[in-house]
């Protein structure tokens, strides 16, 4: 069944790639013209017709539907939201005959507010599922199946052109396609360590010679080297905390494991080679990490208050209370962290670049299952992925008001505007449909998005790429497991307890909470998925 879908997708895809072949990559070319109208040839003539027809019909009738797009940021609706939405609406009205509105909510309320709005039938047509969760959305029936009546095929040719086939497989459940991934860093460099240059200089550490090539921004190294650096830092700055990790992301950003199905209860400990669902906590990797942290904690590198720390790592660096912290890496990371820390940093990386099975479904864009006009919604989404003007407005706001171009083609703040007073500066471009066509911000290399694509393509990927699991039948076990894991997690992973004692203890409790049942169910689902998709 799923193969049929893939064949369909592929069919569309081939048409677009031949088309885009001369354009040199789907994302970098200028696509100011409406994609829906430009693709009326070859394999998707029919699709192009349908799309053009829909637009023509709408314009002829003079009755423009409105599409409401929702996503989250960190501080709530920005002052310039309606202005930006009106600017985008001007484009969508002209290109598609559709009016456009934005609905931006802050991260804390987003999940709940979206659930309420989706449940009560309020108008939201397009939304990002981040923080609500992909599977919960599927289970509650919030998502529109984009394969229904060939919706994506007919009206989303530009989207098909922006992705490889496998990138769209992560949002497929059964026969249904429930979302379109975001163009972002799909992989993550595992176990990156960020240390301010100033501290490294103070301990006389020669980092300059460690770069593999001149234009590298990351130093690939091993845990022993880091161990040595931390020891010296601790000696040099006994009053500062030597090392800290945000406790919510330790496993996900340090270990090369695939948390299949989106949780740590049953993972692929060897994701590049095996589809065997095994227990994370008795695995080598987890034990080694906990032992390392225990050692560092015993050596006094970690603050006694680490478990209850709520200040961001970068804020701590800024305040001068911390020497080194863990981060996931990606192209542009050194600039990003240096900005956040307010001082240049050096990025080390211990693990490989790694792409998990959740890479494409943590924050896909989706159409509300109760939307009145799915065709209009699909076409607007399509435009977001392909129209540079829309992408720029979504990511950076209005030219001249929020941003201007520098001489070399970068984007930067307009005169007198900065992050604190801009009416539209969201910090959530990773959530926008396609930031790859929205230009490069000052400080990043101009070719950052090509680098990003390369990074995504070259990262090691799990064998289970595209696997999703519905754990709703096992929600009782899941809740019990989460509570047990929460009890031990921070203490173990920040090295406050001896893992050789605490891990077996936790494991025993997890087993009592139903770990084996849960893992077996997950394995079964994974096997079924592998058989269906021909993954061995």
């Amino acid at each position, binding site marked *: 069944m799923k193969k049929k879908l893939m064949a369909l997708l592929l069919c569309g895809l081939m048409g677009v790639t031949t088309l885009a072949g001369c354009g040199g990559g789907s994302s970098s070319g200028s696509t100011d013209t409406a994609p829906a109208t430009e693709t009326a040839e070859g394999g998707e003539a029919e699709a192009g017709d349908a799309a053009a027809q829909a637009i023509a019909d709408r314009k002829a009738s003079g009755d423009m539907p409105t599409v409401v797009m929702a996503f989250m*940021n*960190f*501080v*709530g*609706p920005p002052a310039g939201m309606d202005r930006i939405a009106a600017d985008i609406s001007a484009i969508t009205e002209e290109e598609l005959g559709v009016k456009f509105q934005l*609905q931006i*909510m*802050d*991260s*804390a*309320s987003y999940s*709940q*507010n979206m*659930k*309420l*709005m989706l*449940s*009560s*039938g*309020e108008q939201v047509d397009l939304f990002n599922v*981040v*923080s609500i*969760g992909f599977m919960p959305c599927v289970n509650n029936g919030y998502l529109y199946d984009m394969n229904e009546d060939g919706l994506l095929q007919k009206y989303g040719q530009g989207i098909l052109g922006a992705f490889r086939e496998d990138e769209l497989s992560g949002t497929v459940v059964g026969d249904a396609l429930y979302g379109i991934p975001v163009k972002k*860093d799909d992989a*993550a460099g595992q176990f990156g360590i960020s240390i301010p240059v100033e501290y490294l200089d103070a301990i006389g550490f020669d980092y300059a010679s460690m770069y593999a090539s001149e234009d590298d921004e990351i130093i690939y190294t091993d845990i022993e080297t880091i161990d040595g650096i931390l020891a010296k830092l601790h000696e040099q700055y006994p009053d500062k905390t030597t090392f800290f990790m*945000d*406790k*919510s*992301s330790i496993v*996900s*950003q340090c270990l090369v494991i695939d948390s299949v199905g989106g949780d740590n209860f049953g993972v692929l400990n060897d994701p590049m080679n095996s589809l065997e669902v095994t227990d994370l906590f008795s695995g080598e990797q987890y034990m080694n990490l906990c032992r390392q942290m225990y050692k560092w904690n015993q050596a006094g590198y970690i603050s006694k208050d680490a478990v209850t720390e*709520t*200040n*961001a*790592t*970068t*804020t*701590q660096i*800024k*305040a*001068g*209370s911390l020497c080194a912290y863990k*981060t*996931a890496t*990606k192209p542009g990371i050194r600039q*990003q*962290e240096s900005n*956040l820390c307010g001082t240049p940093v050096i990025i080390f990386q211990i693990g490989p670049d790694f792409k998990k099975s959740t890479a494409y479904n*943590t*924050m896909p864009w989706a159409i509300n299952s109760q939307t009145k006009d799915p065709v209009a919604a699909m076409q607007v989404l399509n435009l977001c992925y392909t129209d540079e003007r829309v992408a720029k407005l979504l990511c950076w706001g209005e030219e001249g008001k929020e941003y201007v171009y520098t001489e070399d083609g970068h984007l930067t703040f307009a005169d007198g505007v900065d*992050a*604190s*007073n801009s009416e539209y500066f969201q*910090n*959530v471009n*990773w959530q926008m449909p396609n930031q790859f066509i929205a230009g490069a911000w000052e400080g990043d290399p101009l070719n950052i998005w090509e680098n990003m694509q390369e990074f995504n393509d070259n990262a090691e990927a799990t064998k289970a790429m595209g696997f999703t699991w519905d754990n709703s039948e096992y929600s009782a076990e899941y809740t019990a497991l989460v509570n047990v894991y929460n009890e031990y997690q921070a203490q173990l992973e920040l090295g406050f307890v001896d893992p050789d004692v605490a891990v077996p203890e936790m494991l025993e409790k997890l087993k009592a909470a139903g770990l084996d049942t849960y893992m077996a169910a997950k394995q079964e689902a994974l096997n079924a998925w592998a058989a269906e998709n021909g993954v061995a």
Partner: protein
Amino acid sequence: MNNTHIKSERNFQIFANFIMIIVTLCSIIPLILLLISSLTDDSALIRNGYSFIPEKWSLSAYNYIFTSGNSVVHAYGISIILTIVGTVCGLTITTLLAYALSKKFLPGRGVLTFLVVFTMLFNGGLVPTYMNYSNVFNIKNTFFALLVPGLMMNAFNIMMMKSYFVTGVPDEILEAAYIDGATEFQAFFKIALPLAKPIIATIALFIGIGYWNDWMNGYIYLTKRTDLFSIQNLLNRMIQNIQFLTQNSTVASQASIGLAAIPAVSVRMAMAVVGILPIIIVYPFIQKNLVKGITLGGVKG
């Protein structure tokens, strides 16, 4: 005899003052800390933790709050209007209903009381409540969304007031008024209300605090009208977002960017300080009513 009496009274006053000073200190010391940390330089706060004698003082938090770009002053206005309107409305319907339930002769009184208490135990849950207000009454993104849902009246306040009417407003006085030809309404306004002043002041305070402290309504019902945010909405949004970013692993790689966009600890502290200021201003008025009750209470016996 009289002498020992005065002595015992004096001893009691000393004892009571002593205890109350300790209790008051317990309450105020953490609040002084709150005030000081809102006046502490942020980096110093992170480096040294909270301190009564900060390494570096700073007004930047208050500067941030009261600069024009922020809507704190505006939110303050919303909070004040909301609290006044909410308290007046809430107090009115609560008092009326509580008085009715205190009438022993009222047919169906038991059933009505049960219906009131039942709401204390069972509720439809968030989603149905939301759908009710947002789809049926269409109050989403309006001032009514802050005013109406949940806060105006609750079973606890009704029961407290009802019990006061039963015990503190003797039936004999009301009956005497009826015999003198007063209507139910006259008896209520002229006799019951003045006698119930202490509880009215108390319930007014409870309702007012409920409105002043509430952020849930704004959180749920105000998705577009940020201009209607109350002071608690602003403060809690910051706090909840920090919570979200430090806990939610799905956005872990974006968390540090997000956290950098949220104002620092000292700002949160400053907003908490700003948030409790009004009660210091308003409370004396409430107290005046609590005292007035005494004199009236003395007369009524």
